[in-house]
Structures are given as structure tokens and as C-alpha cells.
């Protein structure tokens, strides 16, 4: 635990990726395999189920620090992170330990969940006994493991690279072995860690029975003007063009009579989509498809909000399955007849996939249609239909491209050519302090539009969206200063401010909503621009917002 806490400190302290890489490798080379197994799990983004309710943790910490609730809350507001707040407030340790990370996780942390269920009265004493033994610098890591907000500025790719360096093997192989490693119920052992960095086996190169998916190939945003398309991309004939679907990216793996459905967050979601699992059973062994899970009704893709209704449910009753049916819109074939197809060109993989889809004739498997155009201008015209079709734009895939690992361009490129966001000028009316890097800064805002035209004397501002991204640090600092000066009232962490600030907000989609005061819900709202030139009276109205609703 001490070594892992030291690694955390070192990673957290440095802004240099070289220094971070060196620190990771140093740790992995010296840590016992059982500890390294868990370190990789957490650093690569693994998160066990909530071990202790945050509420209880706050209460116990408050009690131990001898503080009233309001002062704990004030402290939390200033710090912006629960684990950090608690580790700063607790009294010094009265005991010590020399246990490793694996022992801490397996024998002390993970059992807290079961204890909380079986005997909740014993939970407070168990927690107190644990943190009393931990040095201040270990406590931050300890509480981060409990609250699950383990972010330390190391990407999964960096962890992959460190493992590859330590094992002396290919990064892509490690990426593949890491798939599923960070599962929510994962219990990585010393043997699992050894397997991550082990020499590649012949069995691994011919995987007939494993449920492992391939690392997803990710697209790059394409933001050049249409007049430059020919110069940058060449002729449209060199590209496969498809719609960019707004669903869940997924790989369907069928091997040795079994089906696995993996989401891009490499979560195993087979159980969430039984109709896709049963479709997968109809596929021949040794098949891996890449595509998008979407809700599909009357031959049309449905808004993402529909899919969310399914993701959020614990149990999937027959009614839900009937009302919100999903399909896999397949667009790539990564494995066929047990052979890895990723090195063969995109266009050839697509031909094979289309044959497969046609032969299978399954209602839950649809080939994502290919679009053709005489010219890029022609395709740009077709792309104008994107919004009404409920898609985000187009995907452009090099016909010769292999299927790469992650967001790379070494074997060919996928571009996402998204439609411009919808936008509206809105007024900032509430502000809240941010978290992490933005702790103590008012960086999370609620925006409103007018409920009537300027001529209407008693018109009011109606909140309709929250946004916290899109400003530079410098702009955010200035906005923060204005918020502090124009505060009307503070309610806990939230301040209402005198309406003086106008921003152009961009968003990807818009739908009617009975849950919102404005009657409208927008998807992915963010600040495009601070309209310092615009007085609040000229901000947009509910009318302008409603006009953007799809008919």
C-alpha cells in the first residue's frame, strides 16, 4: 500500500508523461505481482462496486475530525473531492501496518461491501480501524479506492505501454489482454498480472475459445472545409461512407458456442441485450462483429434517450424488451472462421460482412448502410438529412485501412464527419463550483432562455441546460470573477447571479421532455463562445429553442 501510495503521489505530482511512464515501470518492476495486479486494475480505470455509501463515509469522517456538518461541507466545497477532503481532515494515525495493496483490497476493502449488507452496524468500527493504521499519504489513495474516483492523470494507453515495456511484448497484445481486465467485478490475481506481461503463446495467436474482443479502432474528428476534402482525402471512391450512429459501440464475439457482447468501455453487456445474445448464437463460431447497438423501431433508429431507458433498468421484463427493441447495426468483421481479419483492407472486410449478414437473415442484425456520392459536395448534401434521421453525421473509412488499435492512424484512418451542433444564445443564471482541477472555481453553469419575446414586459428566464465545458482557463477565471461580483444569493454550493453573461451554447440533439421546466431536453450541451458583445435582452427565447425541435 505504501509503494502504491508513493506511485500515486509521483504520478499526481508530475505533468510530464515521460516521468509518469518511468514511475509506472519502476513500480511494476518492483511490486509483488499480486499488488501490481490491483495497481493495473485501478490505474487502467477499474472500479469495484460502491464499497461504502458516501453518506456514511462523510458522517464518520466528520465525527472523527470533530467537526459540525456545515464545516465539513465548507471544507468539501473548497477541496472539491470527497476522498481528498476526508484525508485532509482526519486526525493523525494511531497505528501502523506493512500490508501490500492486494492484501488491503482483498482482505480489508472489498469485504466492506458484504459487511455493510450483512451487518451494517459493524461497518463504522471496521472503517475506523482501517484508517487509523494508514499514514496520511496512504489515506488519499485509500479513500479514492472507496469512493471510486480514481483519476490520476494516467491514461489506459500509458498503463498498456508500461506493461508492454515491462513484459517486453507488443503493446497491442497487452491491450487485447487488458480487455475485460477492469470489469466491475474483477478480482485480478498475481497469475492474472503474470498473464498480462507473459511471453505470447501460440494458443494466444489462435484463440478459438476465449471471449476476448479486439481493442476498438477509434475515429478521429474531421473538421476541414468541404472545399479541402479532395485535397485531404482524395476521391470519395477511395472511402467507405456510412452514417455515424448515436448508440452504444459494441463488439459481438462468437466462439466455441458462446456469445459475448462488449461495449467500448469494455464492459461485458451480453446480459443487457438478450435479443442480441440470441442473435449471436446463430452466428458461426469464430466470428467477431463490430457495430453500434441502437433502438430500432419501424425501420428507423430511435433517439439515444430511448436506449438510456434500457441501460438504466436492473431487470428487463418482456414488456420493456418488446417496447424498446434493439438491433446491432454492424459495420465491420474483425474475425471470420476463427481468423483475425484486422489486417485485410476495410473494403474486403465489408464484403465478407455483408455476405454474412445476408446469409444469417436475422432481424436483430442489420448491416449499417453504405452511402455513395459522385463527389464530396454530393455527400455533404446527403449529410444534411443527418439531423432528421437522428444520426450524428457520417463516418469516412479508408477502403484500404486495416483495423487499428485505439485512436491510431498507423494502419489507416477512420474519420468522424459530424454535423455542426445546434446552437442558441443563453443567459447564465446559476453557478456552482467545479471539482478536481476546477475546485474553488465557479465552473459549472445553468443556462436559461427567455419565455417570451422582448416586447413582452413580464417575461422571465427559464433554465433549460447545464454546461461546464468549452471555456479556456483564462475565460473561466474571468467568468468566475463576474459570478463572485454579481451573486444574488448562495444556496449551499450554488450561487444565483444577476443575469449579465450570455453564451452561445452548442448541443447535439433536442427533444421534448416532461421532466424539464422548459419542456425541452438537449443532449451534450457545451459552451461554444462567450458572447461578451451581446446584452442579455438579446438572448434567445423558448420559441427559438422550440423551433429547433425535429418535426
Amino acid at each position, binding site marked *: 500500500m505504501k509503494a502504491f501510495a508513493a506511485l500515486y503521489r509521483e504520478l*499526481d*505530482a*508530475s*505533468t*510530464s508523461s515521460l516521468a509518469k511512464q518511468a514511475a509506472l515501470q519502476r513500480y511494476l518492476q518492483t511490486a509483488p505481482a499480486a499488488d501490481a495486479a490491483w495497481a493495473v486494475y485501478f490505474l487502467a480505470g477499474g472500479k469495484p462496486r460502491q464499497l461504502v455509501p458516501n453518506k456514511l463515509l462523510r458522517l464518520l469522517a466528520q465525527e472523527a*475530525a470533530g*467537526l*459540525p456538518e*456545515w*464545516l465539513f461541507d*465548507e*471544507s468539501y466545497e*473548497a*477541496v*472539491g*473531492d470527497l476522498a*481528498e*477532503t476526508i484525508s*485532509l*481532515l482526519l486526525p493523525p494515525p494511531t497505528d501502523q501496518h506493512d500490508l501490500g495493496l492486494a492484501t488491503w483490497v482483498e482482505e480489508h476493502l472489498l469485504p466492506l461491501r458484504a459487511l455493510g449488507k450483512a451487518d451494517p452496524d459493524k461497518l463504522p468500527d471496521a472503517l475506523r480501524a482501517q484508517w487509523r493504521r494508514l499514514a496520511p499519504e496512504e489515506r488519499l489513495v485509500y479513500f479514492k479506492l472507496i469512493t471510486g474516483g480514481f483519476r490520476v492523470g494516467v491514461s489506459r494507453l500509458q498503463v498498456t505501454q508500461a506493461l508492454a515495456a515491462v513484459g517486453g511484448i507488443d503493446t497491442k497484445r497487452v491491450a487485447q489482454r487488458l480487455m475485460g481486465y477492469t470489469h466491475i467485478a474483477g478480482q485480478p490475481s498475481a497469475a492474472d498480472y503474470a498473464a498480462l506481461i507473459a511471453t505470447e503463446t501460440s494458443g494466444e495467436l489462435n484463440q478459438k475459445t476465449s471471449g476476448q474482443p479486439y481493442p476498438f479502432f477509434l475515429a478521429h474528428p474531421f473538421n476541414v472545409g468541404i472545399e479541402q476534402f479532395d485535397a485531404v482525402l482524395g476521391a470519395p471512391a477511395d472511402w467507405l461512407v456510412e452514417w455515424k450512429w448515436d448508440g452504444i459501440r459494441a463488439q459481438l464475439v462468437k466462439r466455441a458456442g458462446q456469445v459475448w457482447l462488449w461495449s467500448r468501455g469494455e464492459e461485458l453487456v451480453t446480459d443487457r441485450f438478450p435479443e442480441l445474445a440470441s442473435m449471436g448464437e446463430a452466428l458461426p463460431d469464430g466470428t467477431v462483429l463490430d457495430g453500434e447497438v441502437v433502438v430500432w423501431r419501424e425501420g428507423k433508429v430511435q433517439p439515444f434517450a430511448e436506449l438510456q431507458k434500457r441501460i438504466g433498468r436492473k431487470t428487463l421484463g418482456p414488456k420493456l424488451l418488446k417496447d424498446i427493441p434493439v438491433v446491432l447495426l454492424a459495420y465491420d468483421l474483425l474475425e471470420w472462421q476463427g481468423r483475425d481479419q484486422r489486417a485485410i483492407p476495410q473494403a474486403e472486410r465489408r464484403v465478407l460482412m455483408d455476405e454474412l449478414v445476408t446469409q444469417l437473415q436475422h432481424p436483430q442484425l442489420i448491416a449499417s448502410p453504405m452511402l455513395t456520392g459522385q463527389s464530396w459536395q454530393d455527400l455533404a448534401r446527403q449529410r444534411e438529412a443527418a439531423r432528421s434521421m437522428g444520426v450524428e453525421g457520417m463516418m469516412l473509412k479508408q477502403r484500404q485501412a486495416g483495423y487499428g488499435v485505439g485512436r491510431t492512424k498507423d494502419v489507416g484512418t477512420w474519420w468522424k464527419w459530424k454535423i455542426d451542433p445546434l446552437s442558441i444564445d443563453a443567459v447564465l443564471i446559476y453557478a456552482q463550483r467545479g*471539482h*478536481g*482541477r*476546477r*475546485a*474553488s*472555481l465557479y465552473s459549472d453553469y445553468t443556462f436559461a432562455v427567455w419565455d417570451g419575446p422582448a416586447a413582452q414586459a413580464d417575461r422571465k428566464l427559464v433554465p433549460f441546460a447545464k454546461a461546464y465545458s468549452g471555456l479556456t*482557463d*483564462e475565460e473561466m*477565471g474571468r467568468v*468566475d*470573477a463576474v459570478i*463572485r461580483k454579481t451573486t444574488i444569493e448562495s444556496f449551499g454550493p450554488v450561487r444565483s447571479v444577476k443575469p449579465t453573461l450570455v453564451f452561445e451554447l452548442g448541443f447535439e440533439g433536442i427533444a421534448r421532455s416532461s421532466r424539464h421546466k422548459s419542456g425541452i431536453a438537449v443532449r451534450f450541451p457545451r459552451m461554444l463562445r462567450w458572447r461578451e458583445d451581446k446584452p442579455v435582452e438579446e438572448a434567445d427565447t423558448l420559441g427559438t429553442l422550440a423551433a429547433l425541435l425535429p418535426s
Partner: protein
Amino acid sequence: MDLIVARPEGLYCAAGDFYIDPWRPVGHAVITHAHSDHARTGHGSYLAHINSEGILRSRLGDIKLQTLPYGETLERHGVRISLHPAGHVLGSAQVRVEHRGEVWVASGDYKTEADGTCTPFEPVPCDTFITESTFGLPIYRWPTQQALFAEINAWWQRNADEGRASVLLCYAFGKAQRILHGVDPAIGPIVVHGAVEPLNAVYRAAGVTLPETLRVTDPGVTPQLLKRALVLAPPSAQGTPWMRRFGNYSDAFASGWMQLRGTRRRRGVDRGFVMSDHADWPGLQSAIAGTGASRVMVTHGSVAVLVRWLTENGLQAEGFKTEYGDEDVSDQAAIAPQPEAPENPADEASA
């Protein structure tokens, strides 16, 4: 009427007709210490501790200045005034004001842990204590001097071993000298920014032991030497061309605000060392308790928090509105480096 009240010009004692650290020009000013947000220009006459004289004169020019050693009393219109160590920076003082048997103490800025570069803080018994509250939240608890310097030395040593300069950003007046006094000079040479050296001279003149310091323009300061050097520079030097000469350096920032990961990361430096010349939360509590005061007036910082906390703990507490460096300013300062280098060494509020 209270012996000391908050006026638009500053904290005012009517009986003695003088102000304490006023921020607008007044007739007679008692100055707690020479940081620029407490010692401003334009007052008719000044009273300060004897060790503040050099810096006040160099910053404010030809002023009418009277000085006092700690503990000596001066009478003004029947009000007894004396200065007592505040442990903040060289010459920093708490102002004790006594009139008709009632005693008030204005702390200015203070720190309770001794650091070896200025006379340590002494609690002064009083009826009413005026306290700052810069770090008035329980999350602020400083490491001991020993732990702090072990960390700074380890960072410097590792950089020196790996052949790169260690640039430590810190305020030129107080913080820089504390670092000089506390680090292990055996690790390598120490180079200071032009804003720091004049203040070193003041400290040395006052009898504070500081290791040898070099300027980048000194003969013998070669790129080779810089690779093992500890470099002290004011925060405003961050991102300026002056820093280019250090090549591939590691940078760090010394401030109490570095206690939080968020501010540390916003600063954009490799390391943040938790070092403040203000009291931490336990320091504020012990200082307040040490005075035995039943009434506490809270100035600049977490005023509302400290007032509520003290009230809930049975004291009579109120907020005093002042224009000293406050929490928001320091937060802002942590976001982006100030564009201009300070002309004057002491022209920065300390945090």
C-alpha cells in the same frame, strides 16, 4: 464605542487617533509588516517594528517613520501602543492597544510555528483579538518544518543527480529567506532572482543566517553549475524568458494553497510544497485561545467560517471588512501567472 473599528480607510482607533495597516491615505498609521497589502503609501506618519524599517524605506521612499522594538510601549493620546512578534516575516508585529484598562490586539498576518528567520509568534493576553483567517478551514494543516524541508531537499537532490535545475517559485519577501534558511546547502549551489537578493541583504543585516546565494549574472554561474542549482524566483517569473536559461528544469511552487490537489494542478508546476507564512487551522485556534480573548474580530480570508466556528465555541465573534489579500485573490492568482515581473521586491502580498 469599540476601541478599534473598521472604517473605509482601515482599522481605526479613535481614542489614539491612528489606523492599523490602512489601505487609504491617513494621518497616522501603525504598520504590522512590510508586505504591500498592509504597508501602503501616502500616510502622514508611520509606526513599525525596527526590523521593518529597511524594507519600508526602500519601498515607500522618504516617509516619516518611527520604529519600536518588540515589547516597548509608546503612548499616544492616553492610549498605550506596543508591538509583539507575529512570526509572519522579518519585522512583523501584532499591535497591542490599551486604553482605560481595556486591551485589544490586532494580529496583522501571523504564523504560529517558529521558522528561524524571524522572532516567533507570542500570544498576547487581551480582551479582544483581531485575527486574520487566510487559511480558516480545517483542511489546512501544515507539515512540520522538518518534514517540509526533507521534501524540498529530496526534490532538489534528485534533480541535481539527474542534472537539471530545481526552480522553486516563492514570494520574494519572507518565503524565499525561509527556504534559504531551511534547505541543505550541501546539495548544490543556490541561485536567486533579482527580486529576491535585496531582501536577502535585509535579512542578513538583521542577523539571520542565510547560505551563500548567486545571481545568474555572477561570474562562474555556468550552464553546468545551473544543472545542480536550486533557483529561487518570484511566481511572476513563471513563463518569462528569464526562465529559459535553466533549460530542462523541474519547477515547484511553495504556498499554503498547495495543500489542495486542485490548486496544485492549476499551477501547472511539477511539485507543490505546502509552505505558508500564515497560521494553519490549528494555529489559528491555538493563537486565539492563547490570547484568552472573549471577543474575536475576524479579517481577511474565511471570515464567515471562522466567525461561525468561534461563535459555536462560545466566543463573541464578528467579521471585520478589510482590503488585505483575501481568499479569492489568492485563488485567482493561482490560475495564471501574473504577466509582469515585480519592479519592487516587496510588491507582492504573501500567501
